[in-house]
């Protein structure tokens, strides 16, 4: 290897010379280039001979850091011919050692504090709901929660604990250790993973160990791995995926790529890469950025190595394209659907978030709505008593109550002063309506059933007040451009009732023409004015009890005009008083449950997850913006002990975070510098070093950008822990840059002295990191009684808001 490097250099230099003859050279750089090219090859053997001696002198166990120092000196020199034994020994020892320390830190006092920490409130609760097989709605995919639930199940969790608020103590029924072991284990596995990633990027094992060191001693990663949170899991999957993709790339880029194609290893790395990346996506949707990174890397290689390889026939290229398409589109889709299949087939009981879903979905769950709607008649007929639910978007039911629209609104417009019709978000007795044919007066349902079909005209009678749903050419209360909907009251002002509505079933291809409860999606078209009954999205003021406005809208074809019958029964009594009594007292005979197929449920859940964001934590105290993450302006309070100031606060190791930010800037400036110089045909570093530097950019810088940039464009509340995936790439970049800088020092300065200086600086830096880590360790574990001074002592920045509630 040493030989080839020397050769490379010569070639390089010659090339440089040729090129430089043509142009005006930059005098400052040129001589340096020359002198350096001569000196380094000579210096190389010298150093190599020194290395093994050094290594022997260092006792292996005690001065692990010294070893690293010595090793990193070897590292940059492309490690020519060290004794094979030594290399393998280190290879095994270093990551094992790091992994050991990782396990120790992650599992230390894992069941402490024995109370709910931060988002354990949600994730723990979801894990509990899995035990009870109770349906819940969350805007993130379920894989992470499933893993927690599995651990809980194995630990004997019954799901009986009520996760009420942050800080309340767990009782014995919650296997805290088992559940926290999932993030702790994945968080620990990260460290050997990043070690291998760095090796795969052609960095020395010392650099790889440095990367592991940074991950190991970052307080934020430790804190996050210590509790039931999703980030360690997602990071574990993402990093495993990246590693597999890199392994795959290595096969693609190796000399005999052809021979490897479609081999077992080839398929293994490709498929495991895409599966891991999809798993990351199945924990939280932000995992999609890792997936995109993998896709970009594989796509890039395809472009370069397969499409650009003219020795391949068209057929071969096509085969490769299909294989990659299969691995990166078909397989992920299968994994994703599989995860949801488990989710939906496990959660069969009705639960707290049912109302986010459609009536049909709710009815398919045990308990809940299904117990109410079970056995209710399917076909809506003349005389049906129904509740009409706004089918898309925010759930509410068509409602009326014994109060009229005010004569004049605040903006001085007049109203019809008829009875209000609203959309009400809660189940209420006033949500009941009776379906009636315009020409019939009796209401009790008797055989033969008078079914209502698509296109037929009906009237809707409000159950409690007995008034008819009506609309007319009067401006609606909150949306003056729309038409008012009321329950008709005859004020004797020559305003006749216009209370006939036409039923339009929008999904009659699937359901059929007859109006079915739950399943039929219905529009009610006002016969006189051709407007559709619609939910306007606006809220009525006090006089309307802040319920939602219902209007007649000319825009018929929009989701807000679609309603469906949710609860349904047939009228038995003619007498109005009896009918009202009937409405008040409900009594049902169970018949058969509604069955909803997996695919229907899957697609409905997807749509609700993507389009309904339920995380509107406005004005949360610990929010932060992406810019602030770069310099660690704010942390997040996770937990505080009730009897002292001991607390858990998510904060990164500020020393690591700052150096990583600086490293990022340095890497970018170097990249720009090299690119500009190369544009002028000046090649400052060896081709090998440049390739390594470039690959680093392709994987790590791109990974960082993918995971960081999108946060500038999202509109919901952001917290520090959203930064962790990006941080992971940044830490790797930091380690990579250290090796590159070391390489540059050797390139510029011939003297051994400077190498030692470098190593010394790195060592000092590392001990600084350890000191800071140690200082903030109490905030990770929340251990020990702490007084106010101890806490305030940690407040290095004015903006860190620790909780001081005891003296």
């Amino acid at each position, binding site marked *: 290897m040493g030989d080839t490097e020397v050769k490379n250099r010569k070639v390089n230099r010659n090339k440089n010379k040729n090129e430089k003859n043509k142009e005006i050279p930059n005098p400052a750089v040129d001589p340096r280039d020359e002198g350096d090219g001569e000196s380094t090859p000579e210096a190389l053997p010298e150093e190599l001979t020194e290395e093994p001696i050094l290594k022997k002198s260092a006792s292996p166990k005690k001065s692990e850091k010294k070893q690293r120092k010595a090793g990193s000196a070897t590292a940059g020199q492309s490690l020519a011919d060290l004794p094979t034994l030594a290399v393998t020994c280190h290879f095994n020892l270093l990551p094992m050692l790091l992994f050991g320390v990782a396990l120790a830190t992650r599992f230390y006092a894992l069941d402490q504090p024995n109370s709910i920490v931060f988002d354990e409130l949600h994730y723990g609760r979801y894990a509990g709901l899995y035990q009870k097989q109770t349906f819940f709605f969350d805007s993130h995919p379920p894989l992470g929660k499933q893993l927690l639930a599995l651990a809980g199940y194995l630990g004997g969790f019954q799901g009986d604990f009520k996760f009420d608020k942050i800080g309340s103590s767990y009782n014995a029924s919650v296997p805290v250790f088992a559940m926290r072991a999932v993030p702790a284990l994945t968080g620990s596995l990260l460290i050997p993973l990043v070690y291998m990633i760095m090796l795969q990027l052609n960095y020395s094992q010392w650099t790889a160990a440095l990367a592991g060191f940074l991950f190991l001693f970052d307080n934020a990663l430790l804190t996050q791995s210590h509790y039931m949170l999703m980030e360690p899991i997602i990071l574990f999957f993402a990093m495993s995926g990246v590693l597999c993709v890199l392994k795959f790339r290595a096969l693609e880029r190796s000399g005999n790529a052809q021979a490897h194609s479609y081999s077992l290893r080839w398929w293994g790395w490709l498929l495991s890469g895409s599966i891991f990346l999809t798993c990351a996506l199945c924990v939280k949707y932000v995992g999609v950025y890792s997936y995109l990174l993998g896709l970009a890397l594989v796509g890039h290689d395809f472009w370069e190595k397969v499409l650009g390889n*003219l020795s391949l026939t068209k057929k071969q290229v096509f085969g490769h394209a299909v294989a990659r398409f299969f691995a990166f589109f078909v397989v992920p889709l299968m994994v994703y659907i599989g995860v949801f299949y488990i989710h939906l087939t496990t959660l069969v009981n009705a639960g707290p978030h049912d109302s986010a879903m459609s009536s049909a979905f709710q009815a398919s769950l045990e308990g809940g709505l299904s117990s109410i709607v079970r056995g209710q008649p399917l076909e809506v007929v003349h005389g049906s008593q129904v509740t009409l639910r706004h089918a898309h978007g925010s759930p509410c039911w068509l409602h009326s109550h014994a109060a009229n629209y005010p004569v004049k609104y605040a903006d001085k417009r007049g109203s019809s002063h008829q009875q209000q019709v609203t959309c009400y978000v809660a189940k209420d007795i006033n949500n009941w309506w009776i379906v009636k044919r315009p020409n019939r007066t009796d209401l009790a349902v008797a055989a033969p059933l008078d079914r209502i079909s698509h296109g037929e005209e009906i009237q809707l009678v409000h159950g409690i007040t007995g008034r008819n749903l009506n609309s007319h050419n009067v401006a609606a209360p909150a949306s003056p451009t729309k038409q008012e909907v009321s329950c008709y009251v005859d004020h004797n002002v020559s305003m006749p009732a216009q209370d006939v509505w036409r039923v339009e079933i929008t999904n009659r291809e699937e359901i059929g023409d007859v109006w079915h409860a739950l399943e039929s999606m219905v529009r009610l078209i006002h016969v006189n004015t051709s407007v559709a009954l619609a939910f306007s999205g*606006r809220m009525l003021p006090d006089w309307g009890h802040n319920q*939602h406005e219902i209007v007649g809208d000319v*825009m018929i074809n929009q989701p807000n005009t679609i309603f469906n019958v949710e609860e349904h029964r047939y009228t038995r009594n003619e007498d109005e008083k009896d009918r009202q009594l009937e409405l008040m007292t409900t009594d049902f005979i169970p018949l058969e449950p509604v069955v909803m197929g997996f695919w229907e449920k899957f697609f409905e859940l997807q749509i609700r997850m993507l389009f309904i964001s339920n995380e509107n934590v406005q004005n949360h105290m610990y929010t932060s913006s992406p810019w602030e993450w770069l310099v660690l302006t704010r942390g997040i309070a996770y937990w505080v002990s009730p009897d002292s100031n001991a607390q858990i606060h998510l904060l990164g190791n500020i020393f690591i975070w700052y150096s990583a930010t600086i490293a990022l800037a340095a890497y970018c400036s170097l990249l720009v510098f090299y690119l500009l110089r190369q544009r002028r045909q000046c090649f400052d570093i060896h081709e090998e070093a440049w390739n390594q530097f470039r690959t680093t950019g392709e994987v790590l810088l791109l990974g960082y950008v993918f995971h960081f940039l999108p946060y500038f464009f999202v509109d919901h509340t952001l917290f520090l822990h959203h930064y962790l995936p990006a941080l992971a790439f940044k830490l790797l970049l930091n380690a990579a840059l250290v090796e590159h800088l070391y390489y540059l020092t050797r390139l510029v300065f011939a003297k051994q002295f400077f190498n030692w200086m470098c190593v010394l600086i790195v060592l000092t830096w590392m001990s600084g990191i350890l000191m800071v880590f140690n200082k903030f360790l109490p905030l990770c574990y929340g251990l020990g009684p702490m007084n106010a001074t101890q806490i305030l002592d940690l407040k290095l920045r004015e903006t860190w808001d620790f909780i001081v509630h005891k003296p």
Partner: protein
Amino acid sequence: MPKAEGSDAPATAASRSTEPKSKKTHRDTAYDSGKTSTGLWWTLFGLILITTAATRFYKLDQPDHICWDETHFGKFGGYYINRTFFFDVHPPLGKMLIGLFGYLDGYNATFAFEKPGDKYEDYPYMGMRAGCAIMGALLVPLSFLTVWEMTFSLPAATFAGVLILLDHGMLTLNRYILLDPPLLFFISASVYTTVKFHNQRHRAFSFPWWFWLSATGAMLVGSVAVKFVGVFVVFLVGFRAIADLWEILGDLSRPVSYTVKHFMARALCLIALPIVLYMGIFYIHLRVLYLSGPGDGYFSSAFQTHLEGNFLHNASTPREVAYGSLLTLKNSITGGGYLHSHMHLYPAGVGAKQQQVTTYSHKDGNNRWFIKKFNKPTPLWNSTDSIELVRNGDLIRLEHRPTRRNLHSHKEPAPVSRKHYQVTGYGENGTGDANDVWRLVIEGGAENEPLETMRHKFKLVHYLQNCVLSTTKKTLPKWGYEQQEVTCNPNLRDAAAVWNVEDNRFPRLPNVSFSAYKLNFFQRFFEAHAVMFSGNAGLKPKDGELTSRPWMWPINLRGQFFSAGEGVKIYLLGNPIIWWSNLVFMAFYLTLLVVKSIRDRRGIISSPHQKALQERALSACGWLYIGWLLHYVPFWGMGRILYFHHYFPALLFSSMMSGVVIDYLVESIPPLLPAGIRNSAYHLLVGGIVSSLIYSFYLFAPLTYGMSNGPSTEANSTMYGMRWLETWEF
């Protein structure tokens, strides 16, 4: 470096001379089909000019009432004429131009512009409309010339011009007193000048080179200073400049200093010059508007002292605040009101039934508070005790002057924001309890620094609860007279928790004039921006409100009524033929790009003619596509309320792109046919496209020029049968 021959050839030819005559030379060499002559060029250009003028000015005075947002921009334009200060979320240039057009027409800014639908009657509104219409009309020749400079293909330029000319959306939007005509004008002018500049690259540092470079800079300022969305074209020009510099840097026959020279020239004309011009526009804006007006309340107290007629103008108060002073406290966030209380209690069920505390944006006797030490009663104004100044870190109480209750907070949820604590007025005759004590913390103040009127911003931290006095800007229900909620926020970093003393009365201290607080131009400049940005961010759609979303725009899903009342109806909607084919052509471009890249990658060689054609189309489309992306994609990430008309800058790019793609198609399809019918096929294609465009324009013309009343479902309607999509609302 490898250089695209196709893209280079036309440019070199062009650089020889800008006169159309010599353009013929390169056409002969490259891919001429012998169809272009100078005469034809001028004929087509002239035809387009005439048609543009005809379509833009036809029935310009109709409807003779306020349409849509004219109510805002007409009013704002008028404020420049009568010098009244106002607030708008957009920078001033567009409104200044509207004001100028009105002024030239003799408009004296007396019309109220109250609400859409109001008749103009005798007020001269045509000046403003015509001014805007002229700016809007210029889009057509500018697009023609831009595409010409990019491709030197007459059909491409003509199609681009015609696509913009015959689009109803562009036409409708550019005929009214709105910001869009100037905005679109400046955007397309920026693109034109930058393309023109690019074509001067073979004679760097010549006069035309400098001219077009600085013209680009000037046009960029124009776009940004009309609306902030104009910044996207700045990015486009910036990318172009970087790409140019990259090319220059790669030219090894020149020294590096040559690149530096180029860089400096661009920095001068595209960065320094625009900044100066932009500041200049604001300087004029702030100089011209010197009278107090409806916008005052959005600005800080210090800013208001500049405005003649504002009660803070030329007023005077003691500089420092002493115990016993009578104060009004203003919230420092944009549009923040005064701390207010009144003789009404919180209703039952809303925390403790104590006196309400709110913020109120009008000047009122109920905004006055005495400041006193936490452990002493209010000192009397006529006492002879030594005067004690209020200092940073002091513990204080605030006593509401009319009701003599203390500002108080306690652990009850606030009326609307349940996570905050309630703030009330409590106690009798100035005696309260320990929950009335607040600590005064001056922002960035030194220890024990005395509190100064106006200049200092401070927070009031509740001594026992450790929360800050803050306003949530949420409107209280009727019982609170729809004033804004005041709470005590446990988040001490709440941006809305900053207050300043506006009025300070204490006869024992000497008064100083408010002119001492005057801001310099830069402070006012930055404050105006802070206010604009927070105003923009505040334009959020309300919960559940049906808003226009970006995905609806390119497919022309839903328009916007400009005039919906009695009489003529105007509906802003794109020409569906143009909009939908724009999408098809864009897809075609992307396919062509992918296919060509793969073919190049696989080493498949095309015929030189085909290659030249493709490269010409692809290089022009590339930049236009980037322009389209830059003007469209960012809207997906915007949280503010969006409207249909936000798509029009992007449409400009996609229409020009379609022009180029159509040209590519009509040039490359006929050669595939047998030789005998090639020529006629060419003419048939061109004729077919043009006539279908014209016919579609004719069909939908009533959208722009006024539809009859009544729904389009009726047979006698002018739009009978034209409602192709159910979402179109006419």
